[in-house]
């Protein structure tokens, strides 16, 4: 059955309108009879979500358009977030085996927590789903409201139906002798308080701060931008996180990129006082670092990468090295003194034949000295004895041992086993008469600290920040200003003044009282309250 939506003022309203777009008279007869305050939300305009006979598409739309649903989503997300803080999440536990870690550390609670997926609450599909639903709600509820609201507010008129005025929450009725003069005073008073005044005959509309109505929509847009920016993290190349640990003097690859990083030197500054505590406290720590780009032989353990220097920077907390979207942060360090290189002076019969320098991380095979060729054919970084055979205990050069194959110019081949830190060496193979070569330690390079750094790419960040700031702007716009409107209608000598605001009724009552006082009408702000709802 088609409902008649043509108002008695002559205006044709779209289906679903609550208040006539022109004169404000309620469209439905039942609403006209009631004496409760008018439902002024969205100017009583027709909204998509208020259609009758919703199909499946409409139902979904209505669901996400509802503020009640939005609040439920927020509260549910809030509760899920709380659950995610009860036990430490997987990304911070000191273990590679989360399943057993939670069980052993926290007993059956931990086991259950892990089994339910709560150990990574914020990465689960349902948590992301909640955020996605909030995003859907943000988009749909804003679209549903902003278009009708904008249209309604843009084509307002000053002349409103008497019923519309009498059912507003702020109302003054009285007599006025000279309509024209009074309206003039009212206009002046309102303009004095920065209202924009429109007059149509004996009707007046004073409006201010309409922009604050857009506040909520602007803040929603800000949040949508923020969430969309978070989504872009999935785009290849927009997000990366890679740890890198370097000893002093070491150059290592940044996995996943063509960059290499060198730790030239690590400095830890500890200061004693001038603090009463008298303790030696950590004051600063930093890595002097160089960033390289690898041009050739990259990620090939068998050959030296060819590097081109890109940037130098001293990396410290709060001061990352930044280059083309890559940021390198100083996260942590440890004092792990370690040898990094040993230089041997090769002697024979008291005279030095030359020097060879061995890099202990990944030594080279061949070392020419004069007319001798040294080949490093065996290397035990941490020498130990396993069933009488030499072996290595670990990968750290705590007690390096070397097997050198020496080829002399005359073709004689020898073999030496050298353990510098134990001051032990022996000739494994060689002719008895040829002089025994002596390996003397000429120099040792060491690293005192290992520096732990984090390489990050976060291309979405400026957009996330933009979204957040737009959000804040919208919040401030919406919360700190109120959209106020005052309608005046004079019929003969009967004066009706009604007002509406989207928030802070206290304020508009005070302001209207002040305005009325300026026109010579003495009222008390409280008496303007026409709420109609009985208070406790």
């Amino acid at each position: 059955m088609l409902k008649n939506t043509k108002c008695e003022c002559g205006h044709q309203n779209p289906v679903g309108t609550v208040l006539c777009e022109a004169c404000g008279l309620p469209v439905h007869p039942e609403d006209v009879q009631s004496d409760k305050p008018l439902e002024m939300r969205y100017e009583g305009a027709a909204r998509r979500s208020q259609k009758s006979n919703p199909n499946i598409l409409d139902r979904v739309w209505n669901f996400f358009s509802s503020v009640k649903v939005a609040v439920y989503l927020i509260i549910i997300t809030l509760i899920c977030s709380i659950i995610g803080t009860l036990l430490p999440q997987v990304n911070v536990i000191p273990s590679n085996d989360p399943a057993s870690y939670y069980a052993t550390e926290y007993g059956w609670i931990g086991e259950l927590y892990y089994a339910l997926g709560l150990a990574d609450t914020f990465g689960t599909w349902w948590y992301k789903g909640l955020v996605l639903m909030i995003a859907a709600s943000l988009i749909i509820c804003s679209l549903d409201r902003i278009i009708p609201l904008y249209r309604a507010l843009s084509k307002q008129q000053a002349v409103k139906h008497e019923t519309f005025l009498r059912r507003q929450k702020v109302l003054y009725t009285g007599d006025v002798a000279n309509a024209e003069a009074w309206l003039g005073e009212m206009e002046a008073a309102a303009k004095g308080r920065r209202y924009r005044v429109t007059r149509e005959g004996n009707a007046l509309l004073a409006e201010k701060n309409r922009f604050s109505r857009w506040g909520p929509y602007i803040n929603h847009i800000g949040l949508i931008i923020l969430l969309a920016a978070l989504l872009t993290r999935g785009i290849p190349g927009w997000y990366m996180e890679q740890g890198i640990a370097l000893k002093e003097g070491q150059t290592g690859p940044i996995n996943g990129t063509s960059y290499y990083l060198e730790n030239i030197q690590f400095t830890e500054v500890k200061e004693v006082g001038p603090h009463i505590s008298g303790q030696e406290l950590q004051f600063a720590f930093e890595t002097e670092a160089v960033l390289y780009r690898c041009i050739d032989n990259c990620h090939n353990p068998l050959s030296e990468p060819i590097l081109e220097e890109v940037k130098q920077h001293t990396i410290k907390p709060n001061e990352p090295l930044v280059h083309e979207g890559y940021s390198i942060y100083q996260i942590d360090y440890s004092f792990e003194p370690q040898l990094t290189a040993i230089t041997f002076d090769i002697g024979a019969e008291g005279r030095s034949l030359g020097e060879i320098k061995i890099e202990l991380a990944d030594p080279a095979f061949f070392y020419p000295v004069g007319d001798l060729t040294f080949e490093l054919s065996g290397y035990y970084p941490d020498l130990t004895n396993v069933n009488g055979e030499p072996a290595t205990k670990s990968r750290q050069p705590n007690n390096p041992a070397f097997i050198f194959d020496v080829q002399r110019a005359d073709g004689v081949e020898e073999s030496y086993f050298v353990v510098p830190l134990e001051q032990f060496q022996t000739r494994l193979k060689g002719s008895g008469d040829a002089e025994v070569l002596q390996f003397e330690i000429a120099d040792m390079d060491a690293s005192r600290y290992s520096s732990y750094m984090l390489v990050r790419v976060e291309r979405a960040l400026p957009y996330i920040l933009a979204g957040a700031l737009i959000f804040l702007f919208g919040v401030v716009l919406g919360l700190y200003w109120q959209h106020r409107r005052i309608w005046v209608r004079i019929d003969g000598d009967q004066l009706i003044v009604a007002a509406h605001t989207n928030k802070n009724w206290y304020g508009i009552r005070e302001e209207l009282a002040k305005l009325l006082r300026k026109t010579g009408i003495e009222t008390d702000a409280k008496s303007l309250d026409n709420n109609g709802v009985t208070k406790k």
Partner: protein
Amino acid sequence: MARNKWVQLTILAVIIAAAVFTVSSNLSAGSSAPQVMDEAVNFSLYGLDGALHELDDYIGKPIIINFWGTFCPPCVREMPLIQSKYEEYADSGLVVLGINLDESTVTINHFTQGMNLTFPILLDKNVVRKQYGVYEYPTTFFIDEKGVIRQKIVGEMNEGSLPSHDIDLAIRRLLYG
């Protein structure tokens, strides 16, 4: 009216697309290491032979991937056994890849020559190890022709004593199902 319905549909389509994108990028991030019955993650590493080896090149054959180091006594102990099995099942097309755990080339070379290892030794610098979630050594993966991990043995393998760590049993299960 019809145009407005299209607006609604477009918006919902965008949101569904975002959802799909989120879920798929979450899954493909591949943060968790492949377990038994998962597909083996592809990798490419340089070998001691100087060539670049890619796992995908070997898929189609039964593959054993052994993570080892000379600093790890059980890894050293099981190596001769692995080599002998490699020779024994060579006719069946068994591929063995020994992935070394971040040691220097000199050390590895010395060891493999001393042991006369003939299968490819690949040089990993903490990349593939992390991809495969290997934190205890040795760890051995048995991969079938379809590229699916059928078995993972953590610890020293043997022949004829502990069935859970019996390499021969594992190979035969791999080859003959």
